[in-house]
Structure formats: C-alpha cells, structure tokens
C-alpha cells in the first residue's frame, strides 16, 4: 500500500485510510486528514523531513514517520 510518506512534492492524492492507533492517529484525523480527503504535498523540508501538506484549506507540517500511517491513492 502506498503511504503519504512516498508521495512526491506537487502530487495530489486521496486518503484511503489512516492506520495506526492512539493519540497520533486521532490527532492526524482531527487536523482533517480523514478517509476520502484530498491532499497536496507542497514540499519537503531542507533536511528531507518533515513535509508540508495542504489539506482542507490549511498547510500542515507532518513528519515522514507520521505520514507513513496515512494510506493514499
């Protein structure tokens, strides 16, 4: 399964599922990354991590390790 971590800057993807559990998963979903939502990966930080994602009209900074639980297509 492809996860958000693997998405290149400039690409637009749709969220299939947020895997994992606990506060991290909950936080991700509360920030608007829920099933079916469209994400645009804006850029990756200079040192390769974290990444900036456009979701529901706002820009979020997400670590790649956290992006790895977000399955996309």
């Amino acid at each position, binding site marked *: 399964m492809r996860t958000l971590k693997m998405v290149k800057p400039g690409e637009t993807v749709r969220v299939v599922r947020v895997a994992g559990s606990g506060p991290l998963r909950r936080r991700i979903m509360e920030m608007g990354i829920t099933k079916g939502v469209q994400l645009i990966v804006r850029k990756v930080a200079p040192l390769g991590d974290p990444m900036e994602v456009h979701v529901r009209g706002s820009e979020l900074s997400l*670590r790649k390790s956290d992006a790895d639980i977000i399955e996309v297509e």
Partner: protein
Amino acid sequence: MPIRVALAGNPNSGKTTLFNALTGSTQYVGNWPGVTVEKKEGRYRENKDVAVTDLPGVYSLSPYSPEEIITRNFLIEERPDVVINIIDGTNLQRNLFLTTQLTELGIPVAVAVNMMDMVQKSGAAINSARLAGELGCPVAEISALKGSGIAELMDAALAAASSGKACVPRHNFSGAVEHALAHIEEAALHHLPQERQRFYAIKLFERDSDITAKLGLTPEQTAHIEGDIARGEREAGDDSESVITAERYKYIDSIIKDCVTAKHGAGLTASDRIDAVLTNRVMALPLFALIMFAVYFLSVTLVGGFSADWISGALLGRALPGAAKQALAAVGCADWLEGLIVDGVIAGAGAVLGFLPQLLALFAFLGFLEQCGYMARIAFILDRVFRKFGLSGKSFIPILIGTGCGVPGIMAARAIENDACRKLTVITTTFIPCSAKLPVIALLSGALFRGAWWVAPSAYFAGIAAIICSGVILKKTKPFSGSDSPFIMELPAYHWPGAGAVLRHMWQRGWSFVKRAGAVIVPASVVIWFASGHGFTEGAFGRAEAQDSILAAAGGAVAWLFAPLGWGDWRPVTATLTGLAAKESIVATLGILYGTAEAGGGGQAAWSALSQNFSALSGYSFLLFNLLCAPCVAAMGAMRREMPNAKWFWFALLWQCGFAYGAALCVYRIGLLPQGSFGLAAAAALLTLGLFMYMLLRRPKAARRAR
C-alpha cells in the same frame, strides 16, 4: 454576577486579537499556533458587567497538551454563560470541527467568522445566515484586526447568554452511533441536566479516560457502556473515536458547499511565493542563518556598540554621576547618602540600563519575526535537527523567545505535545543567553577580551551546544527515552505585521526590563553597596573596607567552591549569587564591588579594575558558568510551574548547575594544562570530560536490547 463570556477557537485564529479589541488590553499576539498558553481575563470595555476569558487555542476538545486541558476544563467545569467560537474565515473546514464539539456542550454559542477582510480579498464569500441555520447558533462576520463587526458579535453573544438557551447541535451522527449514544445516556447520564448529556455521551463513546474518571461510573455501568460502544463500532466498521471524527468532517463537508463560495484557480498567493523562497530546499538553512545573524548583528553590535559608547560611557558613566555628585554636594547631602546614590543606585542600575537600546532593537526584531509567521517555518526547517537531540522543531520557538526572556520562553514550551520533549525543552531553554545575560556577555567581552568579536557569538554557541549535549545525554536515560512526539503543526499564512503591533511588543518587553531594573536591581544594588561597605572590624559593626565587609565574608564562605573554576575570589562569587535574583545584577554587582574597592567610582575605572583580577581563561570560565547555571528566580518560578512536580524542578536546576560547573571546570583547568599546571582540579576536569564524552556517545540500554 457578571456575564461570563469565553473565547474559544483554533490556535492562531485571532482569539487574543479579539480579546484585546473587546477589553482594550494589550495581550501579546503572535503569528504561530500556540501563542496563548494560559487563560486570560478582562472586562468588555462597552459594558463592565461582561467578563471575557481568552482561552488557549485548541483543535478539539480531546486534549493532548496542557494548554488544551486548560481550555477544556474551563468549558466543562466553569460553564461560561456564552462561548464565542472564533473561526478563521479563510479556513472554515478545519475550524468548524471544533465548532461541532462546542455546540454539544449545552452552553449558548455564538460563532465569530474572523479575518473577513482576508476572505473578501481572496474573492470568496461566506453565507453566514445559512451557516447560522446549519449550526443552530448566531454567526457574525468580523475582522478582529480591523475592529469591524465586533459590536454586532457582542450583541448576538450577549442575547444568547441572557436567553440562557443552550445551543442545540443540528448535526447527527450515523444511525449506529446515535443508537449507542442513546443507550449510553440512558445507562449513565440521566442524573445530568438534559443539555449536557450529549457531550458526555459522545466522550464516553470515544472512551475518553479523563471524562470517564470524572463521571465516576460504577463497574456495571462501565461494562454496560463498553457493550454499547463495541456494538456501535462493529456496525460502523471502525473504532469509536475515528467514527466520530470522520463523521464530524463528513457533516462539515455536507454544509460547507452551501455556505461558502470560494474563488478557485487563483493560483499561488503572495504567502505561497514568500514561502517558496524561505523554505526552499537549498536556500532555507542559509537564509535562516543569515536572518538570525542580521538580527543579532544589527541589535547587539550596531545599536549595542553605539549605546555602549554614548549611553553607558558618556551619559551614565561620567555625566550623570558627576552631575549627581555636584547636585548632592550643593544641597549639603551627607557623605553616606551621596555614596549610596552615586556608587549604589547609579552605578548599579546605570550599568544595566545602558543596555536598554540594544534590547529594544532586539525586541523589535523578534516581535517582527514572531508576528510575520516565520516562527512556524523555523520549526519546520529545523525539526529534523532537533529531533536528533530528543527535542522537536517546536522546541526552537521557546529557545528563540528565550533569547529575549527565559520566562515566556519556558511557558511557550507548553505547546509541545510530548511529555519528555516538553520537559527537556524546559530544562534546556535557559541555556541560551537571554537579554539579561547580554549585559554580562558585553561587559566581560569588553573588559577582559578588549571587545573581541568572537566572545558574544561564542556565548550563543555555548548555549546551543549545552542544549544539544543535554538533549543527547538525557534522551539516552530512561525517563526521557521513548517514542518521538507526533509533530503535526499548522503553518500559518505570512502577513506583514503592523508597525503598531511590533512597537507595542518592543515597548512591553522593554518596559518590563526597566521595571525589573527598578524593582530588583536598584534594591539589590543598595543592599550590595551597603553590605560591601560595612562589616565587623575590631569587634564592632560599622564602615569597613571592602575586604572586611559582611559581603566579603558571605561571598568568601562559599568562594572555595568556585576556586577550581579559577575565580575563587569573593567578588565574582557574590556577583554570581546576586545573579540569581536577576542576571543583570551580575553587572551591577561587579560595577559596585570593583568600582568602590579599587578606583573610587563606577564606569570605566571599575572595568579596568575588573580586568586586573581576571585572566582571559578565568574570565571565560566565569562567563560560561553564569550563562549556563540556574536562571534567575523569575525563570525558576516558570520552570517550577511547567514541571509536573518538585522532583523534576530540582532535577532541572541540578542539571543546569552541574552542567555549568563541569563546563567551566573543563575550560579553565584544561586550558591551563599547556602552561604546565596539573593538580587535583585538573585531574577532576579530565575525569569530568571523560564522563561527559561517555554519556554523550554511549548506546542507550533500550537500543542495545532491541538489537
């Protein structure tokens, strides 16, 4: 009994700007999520019977970090008469998520769609009448910054409060969830007033442990509810929390189409274009270094150099003491009072106030950086680096604010979600030289190193190195190990801060510096002046030479402790101790002690006396210890408040002092080795260095076990 109004909303949605507009106060506003970490109270300026509470920003009522718990507990325990929910009009979807939760509380809610000026500029339109119908509560369009729509908002909010009718949420969850919620209300919540039941039912359904504990359910009730939750989850096909979250967003998606007409295809905004440069993969780090360098060069070197020549030197050093002496002599003032005023107050407070111009410049620059939106980008580009040391990108914000003052710096650490990471940030924030330590650095670099260019930057590097090394070492110990904290942060749009806001910020911090000089440094200077000029000589108390004074006796009693660091003399030791009251006192104390003892006056004479008593090496050791050791009492108080218990607080102080002592010992004793000086202290220094390197480089137990 006043009408209680609470302001709630997402971080960085403009609550504090609205609070200031409502109350006429001047609370601090920045442009990054998490500026407000404590609730603040004020009175509505149009009607003093209305008490307004500004709550820390939250994304949801299921709290993760301490400031979110403040907001939630305030809402469910204090139950204000009306909640004004501020939402960012440029970002309705995510902001409405919290709105769906607030409307469930059973408290009247009024929604304020903020930043309407930006919404209109972007060409979008919001149908607020429609939105009010969908949400079931009044909606007002405002711009907190421009001050428009605020009177209408307050009319709507106060009408809602006086009606006393709770907001009835219009959104429903799916059949399976509603079924479970009805069962939970039936089983456990019937003793509560009708309008509060829904909020608690949803929280119980989400298995919120905090709320469950608060309700004090019987084991039978808990078991019964667990059955309902499990059934709901089976039907909905996901765990209960996710079902609720997903359905809230589904509801928002369903209403947003009718309420908002956005203009699409506008392409990149100005903010996007700025960001493309400032967080560019190649340019971001060099630009960051350049910006930081420029800020400190302009304020410390340029403005600082000017003010050292003209204000500390000419005005406070020569003109003012001279004029004061003449004036006092003219009115026939007693010798001792003249000494108190000239050598105590003017020498002490003057030494500190001479640094005001460069601090004002520094505060203006920091204020600009905080308000334009660059802070969150700094966290973004540096997260990778900080994570290596057990910190997060968000730790940089406390540290950067800490360059101004450690107290707000330590408090800003609250926005960090992860517990270990937050504690680590609290312990290390004051390693970075704050504005009060700047005079100490400037003084020593001027007096002992002839203003060598490398001294001031090296103080900052020492601070950064102390932060990094502490992070690496502590992260390998058990209490700080564990998984990385989630780092999900909103990057706000850039905006050009108003000159008024930047100047007000500069003025507030500058004024608090002056007040400290008045309230702490002047009394401390007087005490030091008195204690250094009086003592027991030949069995009687009276005026005494400095070396026989009570201060010399007190400093001398602990001076042996600092002898291995190269400055076991009572004067620097006393200065260090007074530095615990406020770090600027170190300068004031040195000014008084070396001034009166050797040259009969403050100013340049005192500093040349100082230089005769220090070598470059012992001077640097003194500087290093004072930069890294425990902060002033105000910052210690902040540390105590941010730590969960006294044990952690004492650990933090011990760590800071131990680190400072070790660093100063190593610099001084190992620096002396080339001169052929070797003794017990040098051996101790080498041992300290060895232990330090071991702790820095060892592989933690947990990692070894994992292999």
